[in-house]
């Protein structure tokens, strides 16, 4: 392979063109005369001048330095990197969906409105909630939306003293961050020895300043909060609401529902559980469902069906307003809609079952060579610890980097924060047993090498386009853009 390290800017040649545009066919406006002084650019922006083939080759070659689900196994815990059915891409790319303007007359967009409407119903059923908004663009925005609803709810009841949101110490960073942005004070509670919410601690925190509790269930250790009914009862009793972080919904589709567990609000990441591709970092989609009492607070618009037509309903006086322009990431929602339509109830349940079985299978096959801090039957993922290996100097990071050389995307590392040298493994249901076995063998071999030849594991990766990158340097002296 040619090692071509140039940026697209470094391939620019003055006068070369990569565009193909119709000739201007109307009178030319005299810019200087029309716009006057100081309005037009003084100097041209440094946008590269390259041909179409330059662009195609440049980005095609960049793509080869990237790793997708279609490249291989991607057990990135908490991220549910399952296979993305190709048909969904085709449908979302149809002109009739992708070339719709959000502000065009809803009567001319009934197909799109129907999808939004039906998706609300589908997700409501799956979550056990009353209604769903599809507006949030990702899980984090779903959280923020949910927390604003909690705020609005308490305020509507003139219960303004509720300023605290409780989050477990194992929670994802977006939980406390979202709570803070919604104007709450964040209270962390510890996990108990079983890896679940410490009920005793919770007890001590709960009072009438608590607005709510955010929980991931199964939690980020991959464990189902067995006391969930107790927890929700406790929180509700003290007047708080329960927020469900649905990042781990892939464990329980068709098996249990956040609504039934007592949660008042729940988000799902369509870009995890419902199989929409993650796009190298988005776009995602984080719809949230709410129980009946909270429906009035949902963002506008809500889609309703009236006299055989689907309409946008903006007339929601208690609504928190809009958290994002328009109706959410429509084309992501569309892909997830297609996914649900193809899976049906049985399919979703099978997916969760297979996801859970796959996780337990790997856990079982690795438990003798790695530490597993909370080692019991897990849900769709589990967290192991490389602390045994770390004694020989081989860290979770080293193991991750060695996996790169073996052709795998590594598990999530150093999360959740409560496990030392954490490696969080989520295989998903779309992986075959043969893939799991191959991965298990590799993980076991690495564990062996960590004992016999730890030094060798320190230099990975060796087969990737670049070797281990200096992240400290990047942060110390930030170079965030190319300069001519």
């Amino acid at each position: 392979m040619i090692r071509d390290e140039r940026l697209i800017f470094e391939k620019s040649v003055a006068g070369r063109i990569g565009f193909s545009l119709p000739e201007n066919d109307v009178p030319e406006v005299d810019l200087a005369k029309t716009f006057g002084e100081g309005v037009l650019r003084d100097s041209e922006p440094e946008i590269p001048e390259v041909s179409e083939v330059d662009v195609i080759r440049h980005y095609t070659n960049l793509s080869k330095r990237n790793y997708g689900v279609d490249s291989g196994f991607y057990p990135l815990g908490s991220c549910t990197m399952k296979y993305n059915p190709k048909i969904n891409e085709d449908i979302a790319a149809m002109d009739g969906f992708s070339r719709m303007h959000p502000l065009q007359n809803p009567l001319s967009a009934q197909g799109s409105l129907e999808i939004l409407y039906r998706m609300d119903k589908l997700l409501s059923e799956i979550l056990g909630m009353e209604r769903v908004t599809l507006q949030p663009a990702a899980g984090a925005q779903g959280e923020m939306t949910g927390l604003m609803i909690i705020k609005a709810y308490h305020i509507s009841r003139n219960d303004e003293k509720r300023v605290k949101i409780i989050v477990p110490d194992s929670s994802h960073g977006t939980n406390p961050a979202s709570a803070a942005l919604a104007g709450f004070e964040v209270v962390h509670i510890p996990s108990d020895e079983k890896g679940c919410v410490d009920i005793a601690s919770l007890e001590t925190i709960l009072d009438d300043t608590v607005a709510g509790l955010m929980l991931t269930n199964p939690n980020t250790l991959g464990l189902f909060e067995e006391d969930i009914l107790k927890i929700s009862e406790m929180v509700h009793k003290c007047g708080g609401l329960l927020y469900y972080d649905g990042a781990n919904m892939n464990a329980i589709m068709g098996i249990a529902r956040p609504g039934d567990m007592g949660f008042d609000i729940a988000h799902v990441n369509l870009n995890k559980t419902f199989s929409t591709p993650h796009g190298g970092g988005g776009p995602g989609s984080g719809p949230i469902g709410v129980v009946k009492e909270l429906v009035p607070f949902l963002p506008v618009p809500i889609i309703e069906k009236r006299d055989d037509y689907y309409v946008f309903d903006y007339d929601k006086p208690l609504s928190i307003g809009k958290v994002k322009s328009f109706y959410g990431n429509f084309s992501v929602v569309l892909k997830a809609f297609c996914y649900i339509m193809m899976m049906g109830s049985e399919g979703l349940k099978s997916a969760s079952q297979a996801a859970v079985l796959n996780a337990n299978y790997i856990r079982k096959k690795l438990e003798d060579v790695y530490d597993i801090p909370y080692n019991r039957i897990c849900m769709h993922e589990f967290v192991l610890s490389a602390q045994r290996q770390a004694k020989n100097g081989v860290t979770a990071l080293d193991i991750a980097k060695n996996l790169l050389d073996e052709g795998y995307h590594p598990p999530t590392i150093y999360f959740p924060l409560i496990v030392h040298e954490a490696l969080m493994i989520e295989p998903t249901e779309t992986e075959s047993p043969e893939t799991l076995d191959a991965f298990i063998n590799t993980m076991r071999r690495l564990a062996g090498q960590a004992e016999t030849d730890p030094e060798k594991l320190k230099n990975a990766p060796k087969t990737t386009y670049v070797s281990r990158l200096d992240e400290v340097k990047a942060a110390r002296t930030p170079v965030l853009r190319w300069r001519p």
Partner: protein
Amino acid sequence: MKSSYIPMTREQQEAMLAAVGVNSMEELFSAIPEELKLKKDLNIPDPLSEHELNKQMLTLVEQNFDSSWNLCFLGAGIYDHFIPSAVKHITSRQEFYTAYTPYQPEISQGILQSIFEYQTMISELTGMDAANASLYDGATALYEAALLAARYTDRKEVLVARSVNPEYRKVLYSGLKYSGITIKEIEFLNGTAQDKKSGTLDSGLLQAAINENTAAIVVQSPNFFGIIEDIKTISQKAKAADALLIAVCDPISLGILESPGALGADIAVGEAQPLGNPMNFGGPLLGYFAVKSPYIRRMPGRIAGQTTDSEGRRGFVLTLQAREQHIRREKATSNICTNQALCALTATVYLSLMGKKGLKEVARQCINKSDYAYKALLETGQADGVFDAPFFREFVVKPKISPERLNNELLSESIIGGYDLSKDYPELEGCWLVAVTEKRTRTEIDLFVRKVSKICQGGIFI
């Protein structure tokens, strides 16, 4: 259940259950309290095969009037620009679209380098020192910018031009609702049919509103009416008050218009959908966010940075993560995690294809064509001008009949008409915001004008 997406066969399932040491699937879920277990199927439709799905979706899509066969004169923040075919051919490479966020940089150099290139292009267009990897959309980008400004200045009010996109202002209101930051809106100059005004921010009112609690001034240019605002003067006012100037700018316009950075803005945000992203019924979009140096470590979201690998070769990583939620938790600059990476890649590929010249050409044609359409509409005598200032790609007219009726009639002629301003601006009752991109030919514009004129005169059929 047999699914082509679940490779585990029945026999394999048995063997794996045994390996795990349980007797049944049920047992795997024993941690879930029995009373929580769903005892029935989900009430959702029976599964469809791929072919059936395709057919059902075709019947839905047929109810949509999309811009491939309807002429689109609607903008208001989302634009129907030409998208080169090559863009999608890149973004549909699985290595890009099926990847997660680049947490493992060594196998993510493709997306990381593209983000770095994107950051550079956005910085170049906006005249800023740095840009982040993307935010959800222009509206949330504005919200994040206001937050940054309030925290940076430790002040609690943002002054927002009312000529800023109403959708952005709505999101800003919701977002800041519980933050303790207040919003004050500043009117635009609006005249009468006889005495037209510029449609730009009323700088007198602005001056009067500025005080020691002003964290930032937010101005959009071209503003919601397509009119160019005087960012320079406004930014001087901001500077004088130690407030930040947040400029909301359309990236296509920056192919020709002076960059907000050069005009003194501290933060530039906006919607980069027009850069090669389809309108997608409003989502996904692409919020860009760019700042001058002092604010870099305050930026929300992902940022890619250049570094070296252990052999000294150039490489890229996500950097300045100390700002982010997964490190700082409740003290993070933002809660954003998943952003709009693929849309940013789309914009990067689009800009690479268009190049300096192509972008300029698009901008010029938008100016030429909207100007042509504007004049032609006025000439019919069926629509009046509203403002008297130069515009970019979009303009306001007041047709003889209501925009609502006009749009409905146009739709039956396969034309997607302009935006009805009455909804957001009572003072602009009956006013119509029309966008004309480089995609519209003279013939199409002529047709549009003819139809508008006819409809205003009492309908298509007279």
